[in-house]
C-alpha cells in the first residue's frame, strides 16, 4: 500500500497542472451546493435573529419590507419620512417607548444612523473604547467600522457628500469619533451612530457660521434689519463642530417637523403591543406598524424559493461534471495503456494496478474535499456581504 501511495503521489505531482484543474473542478462541485446552502441558512438565521430583537417598527405607509430593511439593517432604501411629532404621538399612547432612527447618509460607505441613547441600552451595545455620545457632531462607531477604517476614539470621520456636483446640496460634516462599540456580530458593527441633531446638520437643517450680527465685511451682507440679516453665499459655513463653534450651530424651523426614518416601538408588555397594533388597524394612529420578524420571514420565503432552482441546477451540473470526470479517467486510462501493460508485464498484479489508480483517484477526491472544506469555512466570512448584496 505504501508503494502504491508513493507511485500515485509521483503521478499527481508530475502532472500537477492536470491535477490542479481536476482538484478545482471536483472541489467546486462539492463546495457549491453545500456552500450556498450554508450561505442561505446562515443568512436566514442572522436575519431572523436580528429581526427578532426588534419588537415593532413604525414608519410611513408604503413598503413594509423597505421599512424594515431601512430600520433594522440600515440599508438606505428610499422610504417616506416621519417627523419628530409622529414619535410624540406614539409616546402619548403610554403603551411603551419609542427610539427614533434616521438612516439617510453614509461615511466612507458605512451607514450613519441618527438615534437616541436609548438605542444603545435597547440593543445592549457597550462602549469598548472612549465614551458614548454627549455633544453635537460626535459619533460612536461599530467595531467593524473602526477596524476597516483604522479609527480609534479621538479620530474624526467625515460624512460622504450625497452629490459631488450639487453645490447647494448636503455638505460633508467632520464628526468626532468619541467611542467604539464592542463587536456584536450584527449590522450595528458596521454602523456610524450619531444623535438625531447631528444627522439633521448633515441634512442641512441646522448649521453653524460666523456671527452675522457682528459681520462688518460688506461683501457678506445683502441687507440687514432689526430682526434679520441676509448674507451672501460667501458666508463661511462650518463643516466641523468643536467647542468654540458649538454655540454657533442652530436649527431653523420647528424641530417637531424634522424627519425621522422610523421609530422602534418597545411595548411595555405583550398586551400593550397588541393594543398598540390594534390602534393602527383601527386607524386611530397614523402611518403603519410592522412586526419585523414577520416581514423578514415573508421576505426570506420569497427569496429562498429560488434555492430549489439552485439545487436542481447543482444536481444537473454535478451529474454533468461526474460524467466528464468519468470520461477523463477513461481517457487517462487509455493514454496510460502502455504504462499499465509495462508494469503488468514486469509482474505487477491487476489488483496492485487497480490499487495504484484507485489511490490516485482517492487522493484527488480527498484534496478536492479539503479545498471544498476550506471554501466552506471561508463562506462563513461572507454571510454579511451575501445578505447585503443578494438579499437586502
Amino acid at each position, binding site marked *: 500500500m505504501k508503494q502504491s501511495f508513493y507511485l500515485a503521489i509521483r503521478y499527481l505531482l*508530475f502532472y500537477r497542472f492536470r491535477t490542479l484543474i481536476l482538484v478545482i473542478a471536483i472541489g467546486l462541485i462539492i463546495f457549491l451546493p453545500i456552500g450556498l446552502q450554508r450561505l442561505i441558512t446562515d443568512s436566514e438565521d442572522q436575519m431572523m435573529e436580528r429581526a427578532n430583537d426588534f419588537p415593532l417598527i413604525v414608519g410611513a405607509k408604503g413598503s413594509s419590507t423597505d421599512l424594515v430593511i431601512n430600520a433594522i439593517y440600515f440599508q438606505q432604501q428610499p422610504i417616506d419620512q416621519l417627523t419628530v411629532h409622529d414619535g410624540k404621538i406614539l409616546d402619548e399612547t403610554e403603551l411603551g417607548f419609542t427610539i427614533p432612527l434616521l438612516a439617510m447618509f453614509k461615511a466612507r460607505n458605512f451607514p450613519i444612523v441618527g438615534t437616541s441613547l436609548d438605542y444603545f441600552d435597547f440593543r445592549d451595545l457597550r462602549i469598548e473604547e472612549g465614551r458614548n455620545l454627549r455633544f453635537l457632531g460626535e459619533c460612536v462607531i461599530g467595531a467593524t467600522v473602526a477596524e476597516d477604517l483604522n479609527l480609534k476614539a479621538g479620530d474624526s470621520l467625515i460624512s460622504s457628500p450625497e452629490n459631488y456636483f450639487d453645490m447647494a446640496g448636503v455638505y460633508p460634516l467632520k464628526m468626532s469619533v468619541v467611542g467604539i462599540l464592542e463587536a456584536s456580530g450584527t449590522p450595528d458593527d458596521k454602523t456610524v451612530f450619531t444623535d438625531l441633531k447631528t444627522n439633521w446638520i448633515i441634512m442641512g437643517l441646522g448649521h453653524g457660521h460666523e456671527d452675522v450680527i457682528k459681520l462688518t465685511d460688506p461683501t457678506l451682507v445683502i441687507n440687514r434689519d432689526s430682526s434679520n440679516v441676509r448674507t451672501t453665499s460667501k458666508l463661511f459655513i462650518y463643516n466641523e463642530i468643536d467647542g468654540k463653534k458649538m454655540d454657533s450651530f442652530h436649527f431653523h424651523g420647528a424641530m417637531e417637523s424634522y424627519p425621522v426614518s422610523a421609530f422602534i416601538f418597545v411595548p411595555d408588555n405583550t398586551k400593550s403591543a397588541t393594543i398598540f397594533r390594534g390602534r393602527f388597524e383601527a386607524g386611530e394612529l397614523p402611518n403603519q406598524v410592522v412586526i419585523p420578524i414577520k416581514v423578514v420571514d415573508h421576505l426570506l420565503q420569497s427569496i429562498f424559493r429560488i434555492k430549489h432552482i439552485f439545487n436542481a441546477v447543482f444536481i444537473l451540473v454535478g451529474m454533468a461534471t461526474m460524467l466528464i470526470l468519468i470520461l477523463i479517467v477513461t481517457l487517462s486510462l487509455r493514454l496510460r495503456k502502455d504504462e499499465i501493460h509495462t508494469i503488468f508485464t*514486469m509482474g505487477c498484479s491487476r489488483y496492485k494496478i487497480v490499487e495504484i489508480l484507485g489511490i490516485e483517484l482517492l487522493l484527488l477526491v480527498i484534496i478536492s474535499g479539503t479545498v471544498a472544506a476550506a471554501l466552506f469555512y471561508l463562506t462563513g466570512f461572507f454571510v454579511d456581504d451575501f445578505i447585503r448584496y443578494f438579499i437586502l
Partner: protein
Amino acid sequence: MIVLKDISFQYPQSEFKLKFQELSIQAGSKTAIIGPSGYGKTTLLNLIAGILIPDSGAINVGENMVHSLSDSDRRKFRIQNIGFIFQDFRLIPYLSVYDNILLPFRINQNLKPGKSSKDYTMKLADELGIGKLIKKYPAKLSHGERQRVAIARALINEPQLLLADEPTGNLDPANKQHIKKMLFNAVDTQNATLIAVTHDHEMLDGFDHIIDFKTLNMNSMRS
C-alpha cells in the same frame, strides 16, 4: 536450462500461429533470436516469461513449469526471475531515473525497497554511466540514456533470465555496441541467461547461440 517442448500458440482471432517441437537454451548463455518481423520472436519471449500461455506444450524455466503455473504464480515468477528490456524502453514518464530503476520493487509486494536495493540502484546506475542522471525524468534523456535506464531496471531484481526485445533497435551504431557491451557485462556479472530478439545481424557477435526462426528446426508460420 530453459526448455520449450511441442509448443503451439495462436492469438485469438488471428491467422498467426507459432508452432515448434523443441527449443533448449543453456542457463548462463547468451542467445540471440533472429528472423523477419511477424514470425513470432516477441511471442516466444512472452511465452517464456509466462505472459502468454501456449495452447499446447510445456515451458520449463529452471525448475519452474511456467505453462502450468497459476496467474499469480506466473506474476511472482516473472518479478522474481525475469528482467525485461523493451525496444521502446517503456520507461514510466512521471518517475525519475532512480524510481524507474527501482520500479520492480515498488509494484511487487514480495520485493520491498530497502537500503540494499536502493544502494544497488545507485551501483547499477553508476556502472551503466547514468549515475548523474538519477534525478532526471525520461523525457530529458537521450535514446541511449533511456536504454541504459531500461537495462538497469531489468537488472535491479538480479534476475536469472534477461529477456531483451530489440534492445538496440532505436540506437545509433556507436551506442548499439556500447549498450551491447554493457548488457553482456551485466549478464556476466549476475551470471544470468540472456535471450535477446534482434533483426540486426551486426549485433550477433558475442552471442553463444543464435536461433534463426527461418532456418532452424522451427515451424512458425503464417497460414
